[in-house]
């Protein structure tokens, strides 16, 4: 057994996190920064933060993830990191020539109290920021929130820095896709455009973190929201933020600062959440839904009705990020599956309440925990076994030990491909999710069926 010390005996822990179901803010900020065209993310802290975040993102996407660091030493930790950051800005623009540097802080620079705003102003004054280039920053202390908070903070920083209102509407809608895969961002954009709406989607990591092999490496790939688009976001007709934890802050600040009306929707994962997203788009923009999208909805529903017998009543354990888990749980419940254990590492009472609302009509009590960890999830599973586990790659240790069909979902996925190419959002993404669920469950049926019950047609 790989997790041989995990037993059924659940004791409340006050201080120790065992096998986390979250990671820290800066990596989310780095991921969001990569969704700006021509941007080099910069980590203001020790070298290790930047190295760890780049490694984790690289393993997840199997793509280049470039970012720089302030390389704090003991001296800079005592005297402050101003000199390091100014030197870094100079070196980055001289050597790598990005359009923009997006600086995020770390627990180190936050603890010593570096004022990154003041430092970047000084960098501009000192002539270290070439004309027409930008440095933006977000405060992302690792001891607050999680990687999702970091994503949210950097996304908010994008609009706070760039958005302006010229008084002339641009006829577009801001879409904040949330902390989702590049494939999901492409799919969200496709749906929006199919409805005849012109989106400003940010951040946008599509064509950045799922780039092609061409034999010609470019540090700044084609994708990403442009600075002009971000500037223009203050002139948009409205903002639709997907996933309240990852996207609401940016949308609300656009609303309060530039009067761009915003609405916050759940991530469009599964039938009902996608219905709400499409409906919101339709009503906000006053457009009708094209047949093609209604057909895709029907295809998802077709698979649900065709294959219902294979997933009906199956018990599921889930670990992941709050925005994803809310929609995913709703999806599972809506197709008569039975989520029984749900854990996110990110803290927040809202999450537990949302899950309780979604599952309140079920004839059993659902275990749900925000600010939990995968050790707790595993202990729950030991006490009440499940038919399916949905989690990031770390879930495979639980799945192997307890012989549970397993779907990799969320961040990070370190041992399979697909997530950056095939979306799990909107109707088509729902089809892919169902395919994965059915593959996992039906492979298990095939594996375990006695010879006389082994079926060709299922």
């Amino acid at each position, binding site marked *: *057994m790989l997790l*041989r010390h995990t037993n059924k005996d659940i004791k409340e822990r006050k201080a120790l*996190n065992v*096998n986390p179901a979250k990671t820290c803010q800066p990596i989310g900020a780095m991921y969001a920064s990569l969704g700006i065209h021509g941007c080099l993310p910069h980590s203001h802290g020790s070298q*290790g*933060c930047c190295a760890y975040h780049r490694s984790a993102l690289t393993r997840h996407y199997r793509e280049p993830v470039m970012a720089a660091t302030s390389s704090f030493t003991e001296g800079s930790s005592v005297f402050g990191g101003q000199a390091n950051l100014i030197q870094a800005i100079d070196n980055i623009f001289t050597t790598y020539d990005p359009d923009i540097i997006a600086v995020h802080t770390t*627990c180190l620079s936050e603890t010593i109290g570096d004022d990154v705003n003041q430092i970047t102003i000084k960098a501009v004054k000192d002539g270290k920021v070439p004309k027409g280039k930008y440095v933006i920053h977000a405060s992302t202390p*690792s*001891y607050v929130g999680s990687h999702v908070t970091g994503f949210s903070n950097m996304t908010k920083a994008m609009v706070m820095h760039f958005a302006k209102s010229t008084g002339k509407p641009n006829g577009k809608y801001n879409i904040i896709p949330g902390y989702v895969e590049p494939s999901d961002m492409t799919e969200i954009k496709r749906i929006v455009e199919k409805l005849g709406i012109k989106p400003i989607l940010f951040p946008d990591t599509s064509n950045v973190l799922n780039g092609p092999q061409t*034999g010609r490496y470019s540090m700044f790939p084609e994708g990403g929201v442009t600075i002009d688009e971000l500037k223009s976001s203050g002139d948009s007709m409205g903002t639709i933020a997907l996933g309240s934890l990852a996207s609401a802050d940016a949308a609300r600040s656009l609303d309060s600062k530039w009067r761009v009306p915003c609405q916050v929707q759940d991530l469009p994962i599964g039938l009902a959440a996608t219905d709400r997203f499409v409906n919101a788009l339709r009503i906000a923009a006053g457009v009708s839904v094209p047949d093609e999208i209604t057909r895709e909805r029907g295809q998802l529903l077709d698979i649900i009705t065709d294959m219902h017998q294979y997933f009906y009543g199956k018990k599921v354990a889930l670990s992941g990020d709050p925005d994803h888990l809310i929609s995913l749980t709703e999806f599972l419940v809506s197709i008569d599956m039975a989520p029984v254990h749900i854990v996110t590492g990110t803290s927040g009472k809202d999450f537990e309440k949302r899950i309780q609302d979604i599952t309140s009509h079920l004839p059993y009590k659902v275990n749900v925990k925000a600010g939990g960890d995968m050790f707790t999830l595993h202990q729950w599973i030991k006490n009440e076994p499940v038919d399916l586990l949905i989690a990031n790659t770390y879930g495979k240790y639980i799945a192997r030990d307890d012989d549970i069909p397993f779907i990799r979902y969320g961040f990070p996925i370190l041992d399979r491909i697909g997530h950056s190419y095939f979306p799990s959002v909107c109707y088509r993404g729902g089809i892919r999710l169902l395919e994965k669920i059915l593959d996992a469950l039906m492979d298990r049926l095939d594996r375990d069926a006695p010879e006389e019950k082994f079926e060709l047609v299922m």
Partner: protein
Amino acid sequence: MSTKLKGRGSNSNENKSGDALPDRLSMIDPEEVKKELLARYPAKVARKRSKQIMANKIDEEGEVPVMSANVRTIPGIITQRGCCYAGCKGVILGPTRDIVNITHGPIGCGFYSWLTRRNQTKPSSDKDDNFMTYCLSTDMQDKDIVFGGEEKLKTAIQEAYDIFKPKAISIFATCPVGLIGDDVHSVAREMKEKLGINIFGFSCEGYRGVSQSAGHHIANNGIFTHVVGKDDSIKKADYKINLLGEYNIGGDGFEIDRILDNCGISIVSTFSGNSTYDQFANSHTADLNTVMCHRSINYVADMLEIKYGIPWIKINFIGAKSTAKSLRKIATYFENPKLIKKVEEVIKKEMPQIETIRKDVKKRCAGKIAMLFVGGSRAHHYQELFKEIGMKTISAGYEFAHRDDYEGRKVLPDIKIDADSRNIEELAVEKNEKKYIARKTDKEIEKLEEQGLAFKSYNGMMPEMEAEALIIDDVSQYETEMLLKIYKPDIYCAGIKEKYAIQKNGIPMKQLHSYDSGGPYAGFKGAVNFYKEIDRLVNSKVWDYLEAPWQANPELSAKYVWE
């Protein structure tokens, strides 16, 4: 691209094994390349980098140029390097399976060092402790930063003890811990007293030192202080050695164990691949220390010699020939004809099958060129394997090594202590009068040295590379891209962060920290695995499809297929 051409004798167009190299290489002058690498940098940066980029030169006395190493990375440069914590918790203590590791800090540090290094472990039974699949953290929150995290750490240690009942717990300090003044050592002492197990802390805050190397030192010093020497029981075996600086990435250690076992040589402890607490505790009972990764652990070998009387030699199990050579060194040390004979038998048995595969692979790989920018030993050791299949390393450098790893151990007295190295503790070790046993007399050592066995010696990378090879310390992303354009290597070896930027250029890349996948690459079987892996990488047709047909031939012709 304006690579300067250089007129130079055609004899430099061959490497030592006599394999012809591509003509383009003889036209490249490393001094000109160096200028080109520096041209774009701001003046201050260029000045500093110029000391870390050297065209290799070996004079008649075997002296090489002074290499600036183990110095601060310039902010903003895009470095390969990580931090002190990564070196301490991730590299050194990570591979030990039965010590519970608690990261004291925000969640990230523990999370990123959780199972990501491919250091394998094999408990002897299902009942044995194995904590490597667990990530434990105090997950510090803002209130802990404001009010201090010591109480939380104590509670966390208690909770970890209640769940895992380990024989030892270690605590790793992350950046904010040092800044707010949490004392992990006093907490460790208090909880050690309370729980009655060994508990020790590491001040391995990420900002210490200039790279993960500082963390290696802190980790090894800690193990030496808190664990080594705790178990004096003498293992019954004829030839007892410690293997220092072997981390069992991809199962390297398992293969080395297999070979040593076949020779009848016993490993008392490995620092720290597939290791256990008890191995460390008993390590002072070995009769020879063999040092694999000089960078990460040579000082432990020194301390073990001073305190317990165990001599050390440098060995290298990367490469079939190096493996054979290392086995012979160990056999020479023990001066037992039976062992010497056994070692020769093992080598004789292993080599023929390796040779068959090596020769076959060499047919397809000879003359190709490699670049290695990794580690503190690997960029040197792996040149052996490439050489065995006729490939030449045209440029190499370390990520976190020190001058002695480049120029050889003899420069140690000349290395200046600077502000960053000063804060990494050097242990003052003395002879332990009760436990010290001189394994060899001075005379015996002298005699062995006369036979060619070098003690406490490491030549470093540069004397063993060719003149004109370009040596780069702490290579930056920009320099990497320039090297690819100028040299067009057939393969580039570094780490995960560099991997895909290289491959997007259409050049295959092999990770030599974690090996991507696969391994072992150490020992005899490892050599075969590596030959095959490099053959796969540099000779695959998958790199030939970079252009779509319409990109290769964009013109339209007015002809229909049915005509």
